[in-house]
């Protein structure tokens, strides 16, 4: 794990023949650097922080700077370190199980994320399908149009919905003016607003993998099914959908995983009544300044997501193999 030694640099024997030993040594050294630099960076800024989060989740809250004890301190040598280890406890985790707030927040987050993922799939599939069947000349433009909102700020896109959804907002104005409703709908600060926000913000993440799966599909299969008398709906479920499954899985994971820990959307659209774990963690950290408990919340959240994250990794690796 710690050493990133290159065992094989993939170069064909034919091209190796002409090279001098010096050049080969140089190549090996550069090759090693190519691996080591990003490797060390990610170890230090991605993996080690998680170890620290885990460690602090076992610490006690303290009124100090930093606000937890024992702080990570190696000045006491081995014995001092061992003494610190003895002070670690599972108190924060016990605390999480005792207060129903946290359990509810976890469950609600998973349910909200799951429902929004299904909704995003339902909205995104027809769009991706339409794009894949579009004339080849306009496909790049359509693709660009799906990607473009992704480049604009997430915060701004969520903010834009406040003006639309609030009681005196644009949606209610429209519906009242057209006589569809007579009382303004209360949408902002409810779970409905969170669903709308997640579907809207994560739609490109769903459409892109679906599109790339559907675009590769061979449509003569559908025509063959039709010629053999298969009705369009059953042709869809028997051919199109199974073939697009890699895209469906990748899209759902890309929406579900970040949505579980989402903070901006529940905070801005969900109001104070809605409960999601990302918001709970944020409040625990910024409002209560309880670093150990927020670390424990983060550890549990990570454990909750480890299976979907590994599935995502597997899907990525498989897609990579297929592209080779």
């Amino acid at each position: 794990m710690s050493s990133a030694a290159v065992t094989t640099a993939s170069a064909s024997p034919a091209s190796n023949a002409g090279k001098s030993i010096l050049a080969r040594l140089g190549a090996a050294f550069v090759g090693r650097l190519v691996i080591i630099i990003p490797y060390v960076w990610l170890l230090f800024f991605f993996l080690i922080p998680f170890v620290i989060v885990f460690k602090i989740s076992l610490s006690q809250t303290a009124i100090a700077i930093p606000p937890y004890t024992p702080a990570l301190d190696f000045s006491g040598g081995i014995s001092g370190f061992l003494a610190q280890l003895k002070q670690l406890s599972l108190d924060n985790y016990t605390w999480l199980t005792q207060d129903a707030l946290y359990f509810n927040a976890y469950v609600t987050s998973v349910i909200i994320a799951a429902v929004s993922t299904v909704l995003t799939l339902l909205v995104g599939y027809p769009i991706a399908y339409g794009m894949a069947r579009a004339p080849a000349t306009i496909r790049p433009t359509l693709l660009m149009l799906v990607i473009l909102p992704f480049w604009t700020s997430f915060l701004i896109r969520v903010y834009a919905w406040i003006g639309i959804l609030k009681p005196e907002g644009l949606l209610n104005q429209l519906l009242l003016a057209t006589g569809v409703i007579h009382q303004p709908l209360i949408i902002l600060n409810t779970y409905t607003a969170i669903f709308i926000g997640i579907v809207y913000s994560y739609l490109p993440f769903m459409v892109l993998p679906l599109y790339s799966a559907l675009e590769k599909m061979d449509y003569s299969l559908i025509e063959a099914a039709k010629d053999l008398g298969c009705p369009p709906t059953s042709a869809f479920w028997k051919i199109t959908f199974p073939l697009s499954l890699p895209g469906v899985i990748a899209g759902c994971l890309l929406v579900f995983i970040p949505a579980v820990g989402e903070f901006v959307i529940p905070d801005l659209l969900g109001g104070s009544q809605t409960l999601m774990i990302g918001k709970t963690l944020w409040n625990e950290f910024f409002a209560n300044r309880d670093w150990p408990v927020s670390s424990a919340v983060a550890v549990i959240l990570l454990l909750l997501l480890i299976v979907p994250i590994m599935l995502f990794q597997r899907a990525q690796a498989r897609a990579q193999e297929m592209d080779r």
Partner: protein
Amino acid sequence: MNATWSRFNITSIVLGFAFLYLPIVLLIVFSFNESKLVTVWGGFSTKWYVSLFHNQGLMDATWVTARVGLISATVATVLGTLAALTLTRYTRFKGRVLFSGMVFAPLVMPEVITGLSLLLLFVAVGLDRGFLTVTLAHITLTMCFVAVVVQSRLMTFDRSLEEAAMDLGATPVKTFFQITLPVIMPAIVSGWMLAFTLSLDDLVIASFTSGPGATTLPMKIYSQVRLGVTPEINAACTILIAVVAIGVIIASLANKRREVQRQLDEQAAQRG
């Protein structure tokens, strides 16, 4: 092909794009609203843009965000490109699974976790929170996105070009800079742009890792949004959208021109 592009397909695309773009369009329209109310149209006005430029806090935050974005995107592009090379070229080395895990996991990791863990790292090593810590955090997050973008280009890269260069006596380093780098350059440029916009956009990680004096624009916008929706924020958002849109359009035009040039070159080569 047009026959199979049914009315259903067209409708779903039109509705889908309306859903994607209408909120942004409305936001832009109401930034030109004379009235202080964001949802009631009171006539055309650009006064919110004028007041924006007199808002010192917002201008300072913009400056901080621009610097963080430029520095972090540039470093992240270098690191991300190296990571992409590692992922595609070195298929077998110790710890490869861990490495690819560390590249892909940040893409989906909830931001609150990444933000908290990076903050605790900075506290543990005794780094004062501020400009540097936000930049380091953004490099870590965005390098993974760069890696994915560049990697997908490297996948389709014709390695025989490199082999030809090396057979003709070019060293691997020279081959990389003369052959590989120019070919994957469009992907590197779009990786840089993605990194820059992600950094420009980030609220959660910046809130955790930033300190006094390094308030970024999203943090500023967020704190004002919590107080209520105002046309001034709409104006700030519109400018941000315009900057990004212009950047993306320029990049795609440049890309298209390069593509056309490449096709012309190929045709010329075939004729010759």
